[in-house]
């Protein structure tokens, strides 16, 4: 019985991995090798869309690490995604150079518009891709560290923690809306031109970005899988189920939570950094609490505590969103709301749980 579960689990998992690998390698290859009118050629829209789904899958998986394995229902996970996105966006803004509307050699357009005379100190260094990449990890990482250190050390748990994570992203939303913050205010960062000297709109770059997204997702998946199978992963699972008991075994629960929280925040940052060049914009709306809640729905829908469930959930929900908002925009929120309710009431283990039950029934 148990072996069967394991096997079926692995089967779904393998299928997901295979599909990921196929998408990651085949689509970019097709697009790079075939001419634009070939039936094997994917449209720029499709490529960007799939690339976007892959970054969402990465984001969902990072939340699964925190929620599914460690039991922390973080309602502000989107904040880390957005911070990673902003770090990448800042690099892309610096790449615009003199090609902005105002043609200012030093300042991005919105700063010229605000009559700023010099670049704020926190924009320094973003001309360098390497530095930007570092910040993609550090900005969310440091925020997660400071916040997590405060929260976990004082043993804020359960719904309290959920609410303050929501307050965190809400506060950031308000902050990033302010022009004075120096991140483009309401409009955010957009009108990107180049990435590493290549035209960001070009098909080749889009294909490469999709490849990188898929590659990062697979890499992150394997890394996460390794982590949850180490002793640290088991401590984290134990914390999810019986936090106080773990303390009496001599583990510093707060440090383990912090470790996993920071790691997941960094993954979310990477997802954000891959997302921004593919959609061409980052603005404060990424910080809205609703966005973070949507991530939770992806994970719940796919099946939490499985990693690949989050990938399935992110793709399914976002595909549904794309289709529904295209057909009837007003029906999307009804659907999303219904998904929240149905999942929690009827499908606590999500799609993966459903598949497992089906497979077990077949074998039995």
């Amino acid at each position, binding site marked *: 019985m148990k072996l069967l579960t394991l096997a079926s689990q692995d089967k779904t998992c393998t299928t997901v991995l295979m599909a990921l690998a196929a998408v990651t390698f085949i689509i970019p290859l097709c697009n790079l090798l075939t001419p634009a009118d070939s039936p094997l050629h994917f449209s720029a829209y499709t490529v960007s869309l799939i690339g976007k789904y892959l970054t969402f899958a990465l984001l969902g998986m990072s939340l699964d690490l925190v929620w599914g394995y460690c039991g922390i229902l973080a309602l502000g996970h989107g904040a880390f995604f957005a911070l990673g996105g902003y770090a990448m966006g800042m690099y892309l803004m610096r790449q615009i150079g003199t090609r902005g509307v105002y043609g200012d050699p030093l300042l991005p357009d919105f700063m010229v518009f605000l009559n700023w005379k010099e670049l704020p100190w926190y924009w320094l260094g973003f001309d360098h891709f390497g530095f930007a990449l570092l910040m993609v990890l550090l900005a969310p990482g440091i925020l997660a560290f400071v916040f997590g250190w405060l929260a976990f050390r004082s043993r804020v748990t359960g719904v309290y923690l959920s609410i303050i994570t929501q307050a965190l992203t809400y506060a950031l939303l308000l*902050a990033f809306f302010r022009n004075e913050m120096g991140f483009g205010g309401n409009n955010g960062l957009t009108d990107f031109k180049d990435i590493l000297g290549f035209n960001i709109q070009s098909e080749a770059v889009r294909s490469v970005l999709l490849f990188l997204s898929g590659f990062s997702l697979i890499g992150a998946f394997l890394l996460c899988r390794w982590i949850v199978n180490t002793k640290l992963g088991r401590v984290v699972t134990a914390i999810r189920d019986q936090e106080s008991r773990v303390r009496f075994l001599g583990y510093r629960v707060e440090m383990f939570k912090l470790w996993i929280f920071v790691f997941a925040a960094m993954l979310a940052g990477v997802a954000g950094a891959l997302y921004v060049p593919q959609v061409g914009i980052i603005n404060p709306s990424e910080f809205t609490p609703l966005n973070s809640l949507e991530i939770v729905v992806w994970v719940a829908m796919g099946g939490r505590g499985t990693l690949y469930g989050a990938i399935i959930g992110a793709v399914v929900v976002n595909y549904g969103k794309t289709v529904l908002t295209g057909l009837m925009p007003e029906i999307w929120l009804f659907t*999303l709301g219904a998904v929240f309710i149905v999942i*929690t009431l009827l499908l606590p283990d999500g799609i993966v749980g459903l598949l497992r039950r089906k497979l077990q029934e077949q074998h039995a």
Partner: protein
Amino acid sequence: MNIPPLTRFHHVLAVLMLVFSLAAHSDPITASQPWLDALNSLKQGSMPEREQAIMQLAEIKDAHNLAILQALLDGRLFTTKTDTKLVIGIDNHQGFDISDAVSGAALGAVDHDALSKINLTNKMRGTLRKIIGELELSADDPAVRLAAVKAMAKEADDRVLDLLRGRADKEADPAVKEAIKVTLLLQDMDSPDKATRIMAIEALKAKNSQEVVNRLNAMVEKDESGEFVEPDEDIRNLAKAALININNRLQLYSSVETVFFGLSLGAVLVLSAIGLAITFGVMGVINMAHGELMMLGAYTTYVMQQLMPNHLGISVLLAIPAAFVISALVGIAIERGIIRFLYGRPLETLLATFGVSLILQQSVRSIFSPLNRSVATPEWMSGSWQINDFLSLTWNRFYILVFCLLVFVLLLQILKRTRLGLEVRAVAQNRKMAKAMGIPTARVDAMTFGLGSGIAGVAGVALSQITNVGPNLGQAYIVDSFMVVVFGGVGNLLGTLVAGFSLGIANKFLEPFAGAVLAKILVLVFIILFIQKRPRGLFPQKGRAADS
């Protein structure tokens, strides 16, 4: 609030004029013969006769006088060219809406050239102003008298001053009396007698009047040539001292005002949080749809107003029970349909109710429109309570503060004194035991949830009076309300009250330094830090029950 006082009084005057003329409609006065004669000579006589007529009118007490004389002064008193009737006209851009000056009866609209204006000389205008001033000064409504004093202060000559001095002793209304005093004292400042001036400054420094501040400021300034406007140094020093004195009071008033704003913001927070405090605190249920239940309350107000557009004041009052019932029913439906399957799983409840909130939001968007609906404020809630020149409190915020306290006390009484309250508290403390004692816990859960949701609806009615009613109304308040509940200590209604008010006040005190958005961020950050220190809020529950 930023409207200069003068314009404000003109508004008041205009409104009052309208009221007078309306009163005339409903209550035809049997006009006296001398009055009619005077009107007649006003209409047809020569200029000197007109002047005579004006003086005569001033002698005769008649409720119509003020309206007629004011119209005359404003150049809105006409005779119709066809039947030479004396009419008062109101310009409607195409022509005039006219009403009979004698009876006050509306006579419809006419063209510009159907009327001929009754002309005046400058001298007559001066006389008219004074007569109107006198009439207003002896009007029955203190607000009219106050307006008159303020208007007269602008062009105070000996006659006006005599008039005011005469009135000062008779005046019964303290605000009007005060205004007259200030006007007279300001005149004394120009007196050639230094002692009189000193006495005036000494007396004025206790007055709360913007005019006094302006005047004193002017006295201590230097003119273009670098000379002091006020040559006498003693007077200047006195004026400076008086200014400091007044400014100190000004600061005090502005603090009072900030506290008031804070309290009214706090009242909104408390209103939106106490419903949550019940469902979250008493039942341990996270209701993310709480904001949308408030939104439903606000939309109920909107619908009530649409149903009875001519009775705004009553519709708002009726909206309170209606909103309570509607939100409570929706709340009970949520509890019976979803939450009861999720007790003991707070995180799942949070997600499911969030789904409900999305559906409610989108429903409202589909039924009404994604745009904000405008909910009118009834007259008794608009305007402000002008305590003095430096301090005025808006009525709508004042009422919301009172309303919040009422709801709070009522809720406390329900929990303390009713059977339901007893059962709610019993279930909150020990569910199993309560069940064993025969309390129908399922019904109590539904009722508690209904109560919390109903209060959210009532909060929505209050919100509709101060903010835009739209599908996003709930979203804007949900994080804040949770913060209030968590800050106050879960399961403690008094904590919610204290937390709401202190956060409101803190917010308003931070705003001048940090700006509204940054103030909000600072408060959020403060709460996040506060929860680190005291995870159970200001007033934590203690003992074994708190561990579970």
